[in-house]
């Protein structure tokens, strides 16, 4: 029973959102506000049951003393954040803000080098004339040349401290060519993803709701 009511309600909400394509109308506005409210509460439930409760409360309850005192730091910072409710002491919230910003920035530097820069630099160290045990590989050679030239030119496009003239200008122009080909490819590649979602919704309307197919 709950399933039938649910399917009808879900179909109504689906059509309400699709009506936004025609023009902004009260039905879309209703579905939007219901969605903002429901998803905010869903976020509160999610954050409590999957972040604060297990990572702070449960971990605080059953972890060794040393770990326990480490958890006091985020808990205390969280409480300080609530000072924003009192306008007179709102400036205290700058402490947790600066703490989280500092943590994010510190993580950002090492993660950039370990996670991407060094490994991707390594995978660009490739031969541009490729020989394998059974002779000269033409296709691999062309591909590797295009790869290396592409990475270098795209990097020059992002060169800020010199005007893009002369060699730097030409390689930057070739860089933007590569960038646009990559954007076009990614655009074409991902259209399929968006259509799949629409297929999912239309199939729901046609199969689960109206059972025509």
């Amino acid at each position, binding site marked *: 029973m709950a399933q039938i009511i649910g399917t009808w309600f879900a179909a109504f909400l689906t059509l309400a959102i699709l009506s936004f394509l025609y023009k902004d109308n009260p039905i879309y506005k209703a579905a939007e506000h219901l969605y903002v409210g429901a998803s905010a509460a869903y976020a509160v439930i999610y954050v409590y049951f999957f972040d604060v409760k297990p990572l702070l409360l449960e971990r605080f309850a059953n972890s060794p003393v040393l770990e326990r005192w480490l958890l006091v730091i985020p808990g205390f910072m969280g409480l300080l954040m609530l000072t924003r409710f009192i306008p007179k002491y709102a400036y205290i919230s700058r402490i947790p803000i600066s703490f989280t910003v500092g943590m994010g920035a510190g993580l950002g530097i090492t993660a950039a080098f370990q996670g*991407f820069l060094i490994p991707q630099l390594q995978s*660009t160290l490739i031969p541009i*004339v490729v020989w394998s045990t059974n002779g000269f590989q033409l296709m691999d050679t062309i591909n590797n040349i295009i790869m290396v030239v592409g990475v270098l030119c795209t990097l020059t496009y992002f060169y800020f401290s010199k005007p893009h003239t002369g060699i730097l200008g030409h390689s930057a122009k070739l860089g933007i060519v590569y960038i646009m080909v990559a954007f076009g490819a990614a655009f074409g590649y991902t259209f399929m993803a968006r259509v799949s979602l629409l297929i999912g919704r239309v199939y729901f309307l046609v199969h689960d709701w109206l059972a025509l197919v």
Partner: protein
Amino acid sequence: MSSNQRMKKRIPPVVCAWLILCAGLLLPDSRADAPPDGEWWIKVADTPNDDGRSLTITWWTDPAWPADFTGTLLRHVTGSEGQAKPAEEIGPVPLVEGVFVDESLSTSRIYKYELIVQTPESGVRTLLSEPLSPKAQWFNREKINILLSVVIFTAAIVLFINLAKSGQRLYIRKIAGLEAVEDAVGRATELGRPVFHIPGIGTIGDVATLASLSIMRRVAKKAAEYATPFKVPCCEPLVMTTAQEVVKVAYAEAGRPDLFRPDYVRFLTNDQFGYAAGVDGMMMRERPGAILLLGWFMAESLILAETGNHIGAIQIAGTDQASQLPFFVAACDYTLIGEELYAASSYLDREPVLLGSIRGQDLIKAIFMVIILVGVLLNTIGSVSGRGSEEGRWPVTAKWFNDLFHSPGGGGE
């Protein structure tokens, strides 16, 4: 010779020092080599570069056995006060492999390992290792190349920032998107319509969101001067609290603290598409004249940009999410591609200190390009001379050069 040239003199040696240092420290650890008289042995060693909870056990038996021939490995644990606990069986281990890493141990206990080998010819033979307790290292040697990269990177940035402080005139190329920020706010003011700054769905931990907040400060200051309503819908509570501070400070800087209203910066919802639905609704009803989409975006980017385009607003977008850039390029008037978003705060302010850091960044980019060229050259000679086979390769250095950039956890092989 201006400091610029003198500084140029010092770069090549810095790069070479780095390469040599990297190589020196990255020599491979001692491999299990065959003993002269074929005598079986078992050794225990502390696993390097770990938090002291694992030991590496190596042994040498008879290499002629089939690969799947197994012996049983036992672990003898003695507590810190010396009381010996009963032997625990770790399980069957392939003998020919010759190595096993035991995990989740404790630094306060002492461990001995016993290997029982059951063979038809020589019956049961057991090998017992020396006692050892694992140690935690204070420095992870595998990450030496990352440490040196971060040190060189920071040195370059700080070097150029000091250079900039000493009055060196620094150039930065034109970024179309950022030129348009000022007249976008101006146009919105003429039409008497608000300006929207959409910081994306990233958290305060995403650097793109931090860059967006930096730009927000300058745009909010401009909006305060023009007395144009400035709306910032947020998708993450921490970003909202920080953005409220940023806009309050900007309005104070513009001398119009009275105009600032805290509900300019509002939290909508934490859900990606709830946020998109809410912001689309705001756009259709409040019809902003200028929309800035700057920060960390995922799939909802085009939902926002296409609606903004439909209501005829000037749209300036910028993100570091390469997958979303094509959609911004298609739907917005100006798009800051990746790094241009990070250069925005330096560009808008032209403060010498910020421009200095951009120069430092470009120097590292130049070093990256030199490394790629050197690497490609070495690998090409290696591939041509060796005809693809391993032993014939002339510059054995090519493989060694590639290994310099091995990143533990980055998995670059």
